[in-house]
């Protein structure tokens, strides 16, 4: 291939002086006459399809996460089967997640989830990200899990959950329910839910919830503590 970046590969041999418009025109005429006018667009396509991501070794993952070797193997086999290229991008992620919620629209919440898993914010979730997230949720301490949940809610990752962020999250969760619910969903339901959430969590009533307030309030809530056991035997 020989040329990296740049849209016009044929210009790579040309010195700076002939990049002027006149040079353009002469080169165009020359290519027109000799029939080499069409750009080599075929080469560009090869760049995309060979992207493949291999995770680090099994031992390293064992150290970084709290899964056993066998569990990692099973997880990876499933992951690799679904995504042979080794990474999940946002579209695939949304598609996968929507299969579990046929009645509603889960795309917004899937986006938030994707951003929560994509810890290095490069637009794709690799196996390491996937397993790291799962390890925190399924094998982490209660504080770890609450931390993860806070990270999910904090859309712009600035350490504070504002009412707008919470409202976005709430709306996306309610979207997943779809239209046919009992009792029927009202317009204000998400907002009311956000209000009650803030009432519970926001200790100093400053309109934002910090991580300490969040963890403190959650630890005081018995329901939440009890429901945490939910995640102990998912895998």
């Amino acid at each position, binding site marked *: 291939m020989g040329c990296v970046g740049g849209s016009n590969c044929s210009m790579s041999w040309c010195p700076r002086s002939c990049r002027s418009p006149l040079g353009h025109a002469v080169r165009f005429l020359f290519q027109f006459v000799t029939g080499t006018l069409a750009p080599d667009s075929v080469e560009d396509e090869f760049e995309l399809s060979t992207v493949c991501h291999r995770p680090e070794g099994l031992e390293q993952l064992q150290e970084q996460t709290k899964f056993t070797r066998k569990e990692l193997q099973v997880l990876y*086999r*499933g992951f690799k089967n679904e995504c042979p290229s080794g990474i999940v991008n946002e579209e695939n992620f949304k598609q996968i997640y929507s299969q579990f919620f046929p009645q509603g629209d889960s795309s917004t919440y899937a986006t938030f989830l994707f951003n929560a898993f994509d810890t290095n914010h490069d637009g794709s979730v690799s196996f390491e990200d996937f397993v790291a997230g799962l390890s925190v949720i399924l094998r982490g301490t209660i504080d770890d899990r609450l931390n993860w949940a806070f990270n999910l809610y904090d859309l712009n990752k600035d350490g504070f959950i504002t009412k707008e962020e919470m409202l976005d999250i709430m709306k996306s969760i309610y979207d997943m329910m779809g239209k046919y619910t009992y009792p029927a969903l009202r317009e204000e339901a998400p907002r009311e839910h956000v209000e009650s959430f803030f009432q519970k969590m926001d200790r100093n009533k400053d309109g934002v919830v910090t991580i300490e307030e969040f963890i403190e309030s959650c630890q005081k809530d018995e329901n939440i503590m009890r429901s945490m056991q939910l995640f102990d035997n998912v895998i």
Partner: protein
Amino acid sequence: MAAGVATWLPFARAAAVGWLPLAQQPLPAAPQGCEARSDEVLVVNVSGRRFQTWKNTLDRYPDTLLGSSEKEFFFDPDSGEYFFDRDPDLFRHVLNFYRTGRLHCPRQECIQAFDEELAFYGIVPELIGDCCLEEYRDRKKENAERLAEDEEAELGGPGGAGADWALPPGSPFRQRLWRAFENPHTSTMALVFYYVTGFFIAVSVIANVVETIPCAAGGRAGWQEEPCGDRFPLAFFCMDTACVLIFTGEYLLRLFAAPSRGRFLRSVMSLIDAVAILPYYIGLFVPKNDDLSGAFVTLRVFRVFRIFKFSRHSQGLRILGYTLKSCASELGFLLFSLTMAIIIFATVMFYAEKGTSKTNFTSIPAAFWYTIVTMTTLGYGDMVPSTIAGKIFGSICSLSGVLVIALPVPVIVSNFSRIYHQNQRADKRRAQQKVRLARIRMAKSGTTTAFLQYKRNRGLEVGLCPGPALSTRSRSAFEQQHHHLLHCLEKTTSHEFTDESTFSEALGVISLGGRTSRSTSVSSQAVIGTSARASGLISSCCPRQSKQRRAIRLANSTASVSRGSMQELDTLAGHRSPGPQSRASLNAKTHDSLTLNCDSQDLVAAIISIPTPPANTPDESRPHSPASDSGEGPGRPSGGSSSSNRGALRNSSLGPSYLLHNTVKISSL
């Protein structure tokens, strides 16, 4: 992306940690007894060839033979492998389906054999992936047609395409007449008529042509020549009259025999017929004065349209007409680009030749003629440029003319064949698309229905002691976990999933009587048949609950029907959660001791064909479940009778659905 939703389910459940802090109610407990991911390698021996695969791979599609406990029937404990006495070559494709989620059709195998293998392994042929689906369908159709032809040849029918079978003897004369017109080779009379009309069309056209040839006029005005039509006016008039009479008769007969006269009047062929005979009649009724005779002569031009009547006799003409019609946009584009080129060159030539005296290029429109003649390489030579600039531009014009004319022609020709084949394929795909969308919708509604069923069944666990293992065993681990996930979402948002009918019912005001009538009217024909029969038997012992059970059977038929379609196509996951009954349940739950007073086991006789599932789940049981749901937490609902009533209701939901699944199973064999 391959199907394998089971892989992602743990991830989706883990992600539910995001709902935890928001839930205003406590989330439900995780389902117990979900065995750890036992990942072992199974050996499948198909006629001596050993295939090995993970157990999880096979578990992806619990509705097939290999994915359910049905394969235990084939287990050989001595060798520790599953032995199938089937074709090993075709098994490879079946196993690949489990691995990749896409079913491919082998090119060199017989379609019939492949179908049989799929039927044995419980895989629905509609799951064949897009890449092979078209070919599969083509070959299948070919096969079917060939078989049908062979059958027909055996029976000694007339053979050939089209509606050639003999009409029943009692059919009306009108229908026979129309059949005779459309398919002339069905009877000798029709054939005779066909050839006679063809002959007269030819005679009429030839007469029109000969009419204009100059015949030598005898004597009267020297060597003046006049057309034969003026020399023998009577003869030509008689011939014309005869032809028109026959055409008119044919037209009127066709009009009489047409099954839909409006459509016949609007069809192209009848318009051509009308245009062919009208000039004659107009000529009859127009008085012979000089003003109108000019217009009358023009009308004679339309007589040439009679030649188009030949298209009834020629298949090729019809195809040509159709393809011209479908290529209209390409032709239009060709015309447009030609017009552009003509205008450009005409302008250039005009200005190039402007200075010359006595030039032919008097105006740009006058130069159009030169440009057209030059570009189509005709070169009549009546207009030639004389200046040098004109000659240069003229040569460029003729060179580009070759390009402009010659290039689109192969494009149009290939367009013809492409469009023709494409039309055929597009129609096929459209029909398949409708079916596919319908199935996707059914699958989605099936999941919801399954979940609602799960919620109703949960009441069984609460209200009825000896049965907690029953309902859990009847659903696969995947289903349990999926339902638990949906349940968590419900608790988070403090709203519950319902279906469309309950939702609209909650919005409106509907009486009980309306509900029951709706539930019965909603069912498909077959289900009505079985439910009527079944309810007849049930009503003998349990009159109170027969209506409810009938309605519940509707729901289960939805679920069971969509079970068949659960095995999914490429867009949705293959591992859909089917209805509450799966193959595993069928084999595992053989004799569930349900505390049912009426033993409705002997209603299995009904066979249900599965065309369209009934749309809605019943609503009778709906009002019960919110009560039961809210009653779950703070203790049992008081009143033994009410709980037993509800419990019995839950019971009955399992009973007939179990037998319903039996019947579905029978029909799918």
